[in-house]
């Protein structure tokens, strides 16, 4: 079994790895790149705990092969905070107690960021449908929806304050 | 003399009695005397037994004193999630 050599970008950093052709992106991230933020909750794309972005598109990394991300830009929860500063979504999740056990949290954050990147002012319904691919068994989603809503409003306020449209990606 | 009410599955081990008279000042003494009288209770002691004194359930505090006018229930041990 020969491995596939892959050159890619993860959270802005150039990365190279060799993996068997059948290995999932999730296993590559966790076992080869030590990025354990993405979790395997089901391995079948049903729970969203392994959510990452590939070229800005939200995917379940358990359904993507490592070999597929050649030349792509991969984004994981580890890339959300900038230096010492948490992303607004991250700080709002803490502030609103939007996590209990926390296993689904990385997936929710990646999915919520993907939502806010394309819709900076989502309604409650839009938030709920955007996050419907991510399972949480602890919270009943109540505080998650509130945290995402609060983050959207905060980002809008920040953008207004800095006198320009939100550039946050 | 305490009147000890016996609940549910435990009655089997005390020959079907719903209540028993026992002289005891603590849970430990109560359980020791019951065990002397009803050796079959040992199976339940191993896996778990609880004593309710005036409505408060004790699972492991065997040193707990029992007031002589207390309402005493012998209960099976519970599990939770």
């Amino acid at each position, binding site marked *: *079994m020969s491995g596939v050599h892959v050159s890619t970008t993860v959270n802005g950093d150039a990365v190279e790895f060799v993996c068997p052709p059948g290995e999932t992106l999730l296993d590559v991230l966790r076992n080869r790149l030590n990025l354990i933020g993405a979790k395997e909750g089901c*391995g079948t794309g049903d729970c969203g705990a392994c959510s990452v972005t590939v070229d800005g598109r939200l995917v379940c990394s358990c359904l993507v092969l490592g070999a597929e991300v050649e030349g792509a830009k991969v984004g994981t*929860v580890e890339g959300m905070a900038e230096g010492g500063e948490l992303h607004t979504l991250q700080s709002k999740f803490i502030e609103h107690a939007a996590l209990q056990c926390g296993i689904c949290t990385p997936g929710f954050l990646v999915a919520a960021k993907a939502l806010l990147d394309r819709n900076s002012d989502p309604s409650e319904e839009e938030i*709920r449908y955007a996050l419907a691919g991510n399972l949480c068994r602890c919270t009943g989603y109540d505080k998650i929806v509130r945290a995402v809503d609060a983050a959207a409003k905060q980002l809008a306020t920040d953008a207004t304050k800095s006198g320009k449209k939100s550039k946050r990606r | 003399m305490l009147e000890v009410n016996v609940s549910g599955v435990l009655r089997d081990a005390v020959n079907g009695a719903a209540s028993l008279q026992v002289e005891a000042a603590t849970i430990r003494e109560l359980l020791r005397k019951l065990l002397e009288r009803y050796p079959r209770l040992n199976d339940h002691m191993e896996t778990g037994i609880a004593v309710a004194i005036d409505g408060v359930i004790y699972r492991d505090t065997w040193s707990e004193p029992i007031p002589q006018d207390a309402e005493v229930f012998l209960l099976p041990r519970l599990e*939770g999630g």
Partner: protein
Amino acid sequence: MAETAPDTSFTNQDFKIIGTRPPRPDGVDKVTGRAKYGADAFAAGQLTALILRSPHAHAKILSIDTKRAEKLKGVKAVVTCEDLPDLTGGNRGMLDILENCMARGRALYDGHAVAAVAAIDAETAKKALKLIKVKYEVLPHVTDVDEAMKKKAPIIQPHIRTTGVDPKPKKASNVAARSQFGHGDIEAGFAAADVIVEESYKTEQTHQGYIEPHACLASVGPDGQGELWVTTQGHFVFRNTCAALLGMEVAKLKVTSSEIGGGFGGKTHVWMEPVALALSRKANRPVKLTMSREEVFRASGPTSSTSIDIKIGATRDGRICAASAELRYQGGAFPGIWGMLGAMTTWACYDLENCQSVAFDVLVNRPKSAAYRAPSAPMAAFAVESTIDLVAAKLGMDPVDFRILNAAKEGTRASYGPTYGPIGIGPTLEAVKNHPHMKAPLGPNQGRGMACGFWFNFGGQTCTDINVGVDGTVSLTVGTMDVGGSRASLSLIAAEELGIPYERVKCNVADTASLGHNDMTEGSRGTFSSGMATIFAARDVVKVLRNRAAAMWEIDVDDVAWEDGQAVAKGIAHSNLSPLSLADIARKSPTTGGPIAGHNETVADGAGVSFASHICDVEVDPETGATKVIRYTVVQDAGKAIHPDYVEGQFQGAAAQGIGWALNEEYIYGEDGRLQNPGFLDYRIPVCSDLPFIDTEILEIPNPGHPYGVRGVGETSIVPPLAAIGNAVSNAAGVRLNHVPMSPPRILKAINAAK
């Protein structure tokens, strides 16, 4: 310890920071992906393990040939039950645990572990599994609780004789136990009734559905020492169980609990950890074993499916004069206490002169049941609370008023025996009656329902350390898992007792080598019991702080008081001495006697019972039978809410699980006795777009058994939703569903039948 015997009297003090909502201390780790869960540990030279599972619901295992698998390059160990000899010394309960981890000559359910391999990678391990040849003789099976009780049903455990019946049976049966609770004269009660309602109910099996599958990393050396990293609700209990099953010494097995990705009772039992340890021992290498989602469904503890008969009699003035129940709960292939727990909780919400509940714990060819949040109470409550609505309707009474009239109160003799102290069922019902939700307008095809629920809560063995840093920060070390924010609650408690800011406390969960035994985080005991131990450990610290202040001042310790987080010298003679803060005293600790620490070990008995009442609005689509929850309110007694955010979170999460149970979730078994939906696609738990915001109202009726009045809050709110939704569906669609889940096909069938 006698000298520092804790004062457990409820103080009803004015709190400074208890009840505030600071950010949780592990928040940053959990939003950045740094927090390490069961599958997130790696060891040098680790092997990957996989388990071979029975495809049959019930079979005799004639032979297991592992030779070819063992010869495969890269395979380092293969184990079967022969590598896990019976060391239980006649303890049948422990043997059941062992047999559930690895079949011993018979497979008792689809998914039962038969053999396991450890190899250099997952690919090799997968290949090795295929090389293991197991010869089965398939036996007749039974998966339905009522079928299993029939005379002709295949016997699952030939050694079982029903307990709790007289005379003791001579023949084996699938009924492991009969248990009975209640009081009064049930016949006379029904004879006095003006109305009687009798109904039968069924609930299907559901899974806790934690998002994190079981995972562990085991390492055992030839010297008999070992380490286990594992996702668990109780690493001390796992240690004791694993050590006993493997013949290891307790102190030589160090168990470290990872962060836990949900448990809800499902991580109170060992399922595969002894197997990982056995593989590691055989290979002399670290072994990582992780369940797939399919394995989680097939082979780790769901809750019982049930079949329940309810009979309630009431007089015209609205008083219940007799209530009886027969409950049949299956516990999978091993005896459990689930029916008994159901029977104990059945009538717990009500003040009844004559009540009775009889339970049967039944074996079927399904995975061994585990606790699931207030285990067994939701099913009984579904049956009772649905019937209560029917009785109220028959009497022409409002269902809330009817419940208020019959609610248990302080002094009521509980249906399971003891007399209640101060309890919250009445207040939750009054809160429901006055809640704005009750007046919210309803649209077409919409209906409102409500229901009540009860759970015991427990305390148990607890051990806690507090160590004061030289800079005046405080390290709080606990042994109960943080399943949903308890580090924040416990830090609040330590800060409150010591009079320091919350931010100066850091709460850690210790491994089994670093702290005395702690029971599981189960029975809603985490914040209750570790909170109690934290209070006493902090008071222990205050004692030391007073001594050190006395040393610094060179005065008698009796002249030092601890007030508002600082040492104060009492008396005019010492009026020149300015108070010393904890940080002041800590700074000088090296020369006043060394490290400052406090400790407490306790059995935290005295947990108060807990009640909740829920209101729910649903809309039922008459075309499809699909039900949507459009408004939901939880009212629950918390005793005292330490960190209200995480109390609300427990209420909301429990309600959401109950909603899933009520509307969607069920184990579906085929004729072949195999589970047909072992995945999140076909076993559908509620998603974000299925639910509305879940409103909460926290009531605080102090528990006299806790210094702050705390009651456990984690479980009770999963109890009312099944019936609350059933009652709402009935009011929305004009059909009553006696079978949970109320899935669209069942509702549609009921609607069509009513036409």
